[in-house]
């Protein structure tokens, strides 16, 4: 915790969800991040999303690499197993875990350094393999835990606290994911809980790899004048193209949306995502178009946020491709795995 008294993620009332659990029961140990760190707001959004989804804590698996961002898996849903891997290699741990048990829900928390530098190769291939998980990048443009070096997402012209100016082009996880054919790509801002929570819910329910790039300012090393990842700059250059509402299977849509400007996407578990375009000429289901749109805005330093692209009908999800048994591999009884002595006896003929 922090020296400046920082309130523990608090909630006025203590309502219960369908499982009879309060939000507090989705919290984790107390955050050790700096007071005001964007990451803590994201943690709060995740807690909210899991609570609203009536997620059974043991159903969730938390994975991360190394970094301030990666520490946060300890700060939510303490009733879930967590795996704090090595720096940049969380995607492989997640892929293996997912292969062993397709029934659990996987959430991976990473940072821009963890994902875009040392972790680039694994991120790219987790996307290609379309491993079913929510992959959340807490993007602050710097290496927080090692005291503020530029990360690969730093924009050209952005200035470091010590004055140095970045001159290398940024790697944008959203464009990258789109170019790799990701089936769920979103961007948001740690300061916009209203937008973030439904995105997290949809991402957790998506059948495949869901990437959410969350701009999450580092108050200690990258929140100053001249930084393009500060709270101020982000608020100013932040362009919501698409509001997404998440509607659980049983739930019925409360508000009714004016025809035409809202589209509905059905997720494999029956829940739905209602997309409300804030920009008429934008189609989140067309990947190429989405790419062009984002890229165009980026040229003018505008970060398009919201559910940028979704494709729920893709057949590239890992287990679909692998034709894995519905019974999770870690629960298939041993008798079904070992061919037994008779089969071996028979097989030996091949080698005589």
């Amino acid at each position, binding site marked *: 915790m922090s020296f400046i008294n920082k309130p523990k993620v608090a909630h006025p009332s203590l309502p219960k969800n369908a499982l009879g659990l309060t939000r507090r029961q989705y919290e984790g140990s107390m955050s050790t991040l700096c007071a005001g760190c964007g990451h803590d707001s994201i943690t709060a959004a995740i807690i909210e999303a899991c609570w609203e989804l009536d997620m059974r804590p043991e159903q969730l698996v938390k994975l991360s690499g190394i970094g301030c961002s990666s520490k946060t898996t300890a700060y939510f849903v303490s009733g879930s*197993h967590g795996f704090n891997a090595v720096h940049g290699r969380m995607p492989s741990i997640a892929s*293996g*875990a997912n292969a062993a048990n397709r029934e659990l829900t996987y959430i991976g928390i990473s940072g821009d350094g963890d994902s875009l530098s040392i972790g680039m190769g694994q991120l790219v*291939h987790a996307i290609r393999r379309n491993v079913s998980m929510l992959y959340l990048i807490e993007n602050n443009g710097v290496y927080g835990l090692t005291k503020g070096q530029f990360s690969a997402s730093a924009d050209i012209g952005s200035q470091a606290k010590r004055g140095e100016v970045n001159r290398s082009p940024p790697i944008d996880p959203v464009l990258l994911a789109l170019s790799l054919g990701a089936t769920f790509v979103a961007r948001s801002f740690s300061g916009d809980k209203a937008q973030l929570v439904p995105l997290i819910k949809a991402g957790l329910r998506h059948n495949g790899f869901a990437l959410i790039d969350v701009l999450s300012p580092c108050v200690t090393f990258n929140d100053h004048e001249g930084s393009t990842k500060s709270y101020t700059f982000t608020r100013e250059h932040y362009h919501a193209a698409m509001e997404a509402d998440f509607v659980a299977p049983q739930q019925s849509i409360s508000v009714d949306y004016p025809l035409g400007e809202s589209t509905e996407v059905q997720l494999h578990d029956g829940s739905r995502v209602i997309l409300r375009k804030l920009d008429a000429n934008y189609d989140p289901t067309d990947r190429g178009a989405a790419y062009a749109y984002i890229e165009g805005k980026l040229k003018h330093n505008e970060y398009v946020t919201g559910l940028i692209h979704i494709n729920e009908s893709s057949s590239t999800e890992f287990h679909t491709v*692998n034709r894995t048994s519905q019974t999770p*591999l870690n629960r298939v009884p041993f008798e079904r*795995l070992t061919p037994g002595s008779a089969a071996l006896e028979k097989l030996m003929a091949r080698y005589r």
Partner: protein
Amino acid sequence: MPSSVSAPDRVNDFVVKFANVNGTGSASANSLIMKTIFRMGVPVTGKNYFPSNIQGLPTWYEIRVTRDGHAARSSRVDIMVAMNAETYQRDVREVVSGGYLIYDSTWPRSTLLQRGDINVLGVPLAQLVNENFDGVRNRILLKNIAYAGVIAALLDLDLTVIDALLRESYGKKPKLLDSNSRALKLGYEHAKRHLSCPLPLHVKHLDKTRGYIMIDGNTAAGLGCVYAGATVGAWYPITPSTSLMDAFKGFCERYRVDADTGERNFAVIQAEDELAAIGMVLGAAWNGARAFTPTSGPGISLMNEFIGLAYYAEVPAVIFDVQRVGPSTGMPTRTQQADILLCAYASHGDTRHVLLFPANAEECFYMAVKAFDLAERLQTPVFVLSDLDIGMNDWMCRELKWDDAYQPDRGKVLSEQELASLDKFYRYVDRDEDAITYRTLPGTSSKGAYFTRGSGHNQYGGYTEDSTEYQFVLDRLKRKFVTAARYVPEPEILGGGDGKLGIVSVGSCDGAVREAIEVLARQKIAVDYMRIKAFPFTQQVETWLASHTTIFVVEQNRDAQLRALLTLETQVEKSKLHSILSYSGFPMSCDPIVDRIRASLAEEPRLSAVPAKGPR
């Protein structure tokens, strides 16, 4: 005509070597001959010396017909089938005096008469084939079968056996079967007509292969993984480990696919590199699946960081290191045992790992199963150190058996019920005082939830930077390694010596060592033998080392890595340990062992004639 190798004593005891060009399909012809001899009841070994290349470079196949059932290669070549113009010169040189050279006499060779002391047999193979078949590629392939026919005649191989083998391979393709049979006959009959068949060196039916099979170590290991119940295999292709995963996948497609639904009870993931492969294995094993990765030296180097995480966070993992010649890319298609130290201490910080050392294909099967039991029991990475010779060559070994009573040792994993009975679960508390703690699987129950991390943690699984808490866990990990010694296989010990002079060796040196011991015995030199099967070393290893006064350590690397490990991890005084090293990249033969031991017994000083610096 030079006098040929005197006959009687060499029947069923000689070496035929084939010099070919890779990518020309000679493999099938060569293994046809090897398999025929095996089915005639005569023990045989087949060693493949191929280049790191796909097509056009020299490749050799060496068949040792060994009525006494030796497993090692012999350094002598009695019969050379010289089918590669490019290597013709050196191939001729390799033949023992009095030996035989078979070549394609379609085109006359001036260089032929270089050696008067060997028997040169020409067969116009290309001509024969070209007259009877067409198609460039087809002719190249059939020429191989044609020389197989020649060899069949010269060695007096059983045609019915050959015929049966051909049917087995081409049964479903009648046209192929026909052309192959015809090509074989062509060579066979030509030889019968023009050469004095059989040679004094030939094959006679025996009954010494009943109950045995010919199988390569990677196939056996892959099969072992299937029987052990491994469900997740992650890998990145690398010679010579690739065929291990190919085998696993093949067997899974046969045994693990639901006939009705087509659902697969396995997942083979071709990772983007070795760092990802081991990461996937850790993720899967942490999540309760038996998971493994096959690789070779370069892969182990890349896995170093993750291996340290697995050691410290106590995640099971099975890693097959099918060793090849290093350092670096080295010689990818040659064999060596030079990853021993790396695997024993992989990763930064204070770490050490469990190693298993199969000596042949048969042990690859059983040790694969053992590896999973150990990894889950000890909650740590387990390395199976095979090598290219074991993994990719065919070994004659006893038929593999399976005990249906076998139940996998999944180690200390708490079920939901067991968790319910605890008032609180702590991941790293040593409840049984064997230094092995209890774990839970994700999804079991939130009561069993814990946090896995490679950063400092206390016995309760909490993050710590407190010295005492940190050391408490680190000290237990050291004790766990002592526990491990109770679970790993004991060494194989062979008496016969006076209990003072002995050989210690490991893995694929076994055949050469055993043969050396026989040879020395005939020369009235009795030597004991201990073959290390695992690290950590057991009490038996300590006792044996303590009781022997002069010990030769036989291994296949430059820096005497097994000797180093024995020096560090047992009480033995290093001055007792004398190295016999082979790191040519070829499987070891018994000669260097016999020579070195005889020499050193002759003149003591030699015993300690080992450079001042470095382990050896």
